[in-house]
Each structure stands twice: as structure tokens, then as C-alpha cells.
């Protein structure tokens, strides 16, 4: 009897909080035929999140075409896993996480068989939106000089405006490590910035 109870418990779908049920309901409302790539849901998700996914990759890799390639792979993976995602918030979290992992994987693969260094790549075009363009370019170059994890943490903090707790969940790291990475990276960047400002060149 007890065993049957365990099996029933395993097979029973996990309860989803009401706030997270939107996407599932939306998906359920569409027929299986409509749920294709031409469907409203997937197209809307691509439209809504493309700048987020692309920007994480672009800021991390500093290469627009590569960032688009990675973003496309991420959305294809989303397409394959669409039914397992429960809400808009879950989709955004999932996309940030998968994009981050893909970027790190790409850099590690690239380091194993180097062709051209990403650090030597050209600065992406059309990235200045506001503020001092020169300063922004300098800051992006400085962040680029950080190791992979700190670079991702900085991008998620300042591009996505995530709190350390959310970054920790996204990158599967302890919150304390995220806070310490943020603190150290900011100190390094400040120091480098001051040094470069003091440099007459």
C-alpha cells in the first residue's frame, strides 16, 4: 500500500502557484497544431526576449554575429522545451540561465582550440544608447577583461538589473559568492578606470 502511495505521489504533477500558471494556461488554450513556430506564443516570446538574450551574449562575447548565433540556438532550445516552462517569469529566468551557460561553454570550447582571441575582437557597433559613449566603451572593455563568471555576474547585475539573489539562482552559485564577486569586480574596475583616467594617453 505504501509503495503505491509513493508511486502516486511521484506521478502526481507538482502544484504550481497561481501566479505562475499564465503561460501554461496560454499554451493549453492553443491546439497542438497552433503551438508551432508560427504560433503566437513562441513568436511573442522571441519578440519580447530577443534583446535580453542577444545583449547578454553580445556583452559577454563582444561579437554581434556570434551573439546572434548563440541567441538563435537559445531560442531553438526554448522552442523544444516550451511545454516544460510554467510562466513568463520562468521563461525569462530560463533564457538568462541558458544564455549564460551557452556563452561560457562557447568561450571554454574556444579556449581549448583557439583560432582568434575574443578579447581582440572588434567592439560591437551601434551599442551607444545613452551616457558618454567613450566611457561606456571603456567600461565594456574593462568588464571584458574580467574572467568568465565575474563578467557574467556584472552583465546580469548591470544589464538585467538583477539582485545578487537572482544572479545566484541564475548562475547556480551561492549568494555569498555573487556578492563577493560583485564587490571585488567593482573594486578592480574602479581601480583600472582611475588608472586609465590618470594615464595621459
Amino acid at each position: 500500500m505504501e509503495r503505491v502511495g509513493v508511486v502516486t505521489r511521484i506521478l502526481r504533477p507538482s502544484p504550481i502557484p497561481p501566479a505562475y500558471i499564465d503561460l501554461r494556461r496560454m499554451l493549453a488554450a492553443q491546439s497542438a497544431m497552433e503551438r508551432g513556430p508560427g504560433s503566437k506564443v513562441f513568436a511573442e516570446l522571441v519578440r519580447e526576449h530577443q534583446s535580453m538574450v542577444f545583449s547578454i551574449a553580445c556583452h559577454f562575447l563582444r561579437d554581434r554575429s556570434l551573439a546572434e548565433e548563440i541567441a538563435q540556438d537559445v531560442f531553438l532550445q526554448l522552442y523544444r522545451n516550451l511545454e516544460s516552462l510554467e510562466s513568463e517569469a520562468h521563461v525569462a529566468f530560463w533564457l538568462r540561465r541558458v544564455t549564460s551557460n551557452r556563452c561560457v561553454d562557447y568561450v571554454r570550447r574556444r579556449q581549448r582550440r583557439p583560432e582568434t582571441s575574443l578579447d581582440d575582437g572588434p567592439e560591437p557597433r551601434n551599442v551607444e544608447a545613452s551616457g558618454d559613449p567613450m566611457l561606456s566603451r571603456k567600461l565594456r572593455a574593462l568588464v571584458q577583461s574580467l574572467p568568465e563568471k565575474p563578467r557574467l555576474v556584472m552583465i546580469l547585475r548591470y544589464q538585467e538589473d538583477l539582485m545578487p539573489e537572482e544572479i545566484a539562482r541564475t548562475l547556480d552559485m551561492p549568494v555569498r559568492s555573487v556578492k563577493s564577486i560583485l564587490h571585488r569586480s567593482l573594486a578592480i574596475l574602479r581601480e583600472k578606470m582611475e588608472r586609465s583616467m590618470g594615464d595621459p594617453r
Partner: protein
Amino acid sequence: MDDFEKQLKDAFQRQDPSADFESRVLAAASREKQKPRWRLTLWMPGRLRWAAALAMSLVLAAVVVRQREVHERAAGEAAKARLELALKITSTKLKKIQDQVNAGRQDE
């Protein structure tokens, strides 16, 4: 958030990919849809997927246990055969010695 962090926020503003990005993604997803799907996970509903995974694990465990039993039985049979052979050889030798002893006694 101090000035330096505000500057970082400015530097890391979101950017848009190229204009045809969305259509390229949708086209790639469309090609993906046309591919044959052999993976179990794609056509099985969630609950059934769990049941299938559980059943597969049980079958796998049963196969492993059965394989181990077969192995142990085969090893036992081999040991038994070796022991029987050893006993047969010993018995033949003992018989030969006994015959020699008996022959000696008769000579005396």
C-alpha cells in the same frame, strides 16, 4: 547605486539584434518542427514520461540483477566441474596406490 554603477548601467544597456533575427529564429524553429522526432520525451505527456522513466529503471535494475545471477551461477558451475575433476584424479591415483599396496602384500 553610485555614479560608477550608473555608468556601468548605461554601458550595459540592452541592444537589439538585427532586424531579421526574429524571422530567422522562426524559420529555424519551423525546420526543427519538420524534423522527425524519435525522442521519447517529445511525444510523451509529462506524467507518462515519469512512469516510462520509472519502468525503464526497474527493467534495467532487473536485467542487472539477472545478469549478476547468471554470472554467479556460471562461476559456481565452473568451480563444481573443477572440483569434480580434481576428485576424479585423486581417486584414480589413490586406486593406483591401493592396487600397488595390495600387489606388494600378495608378493610377501
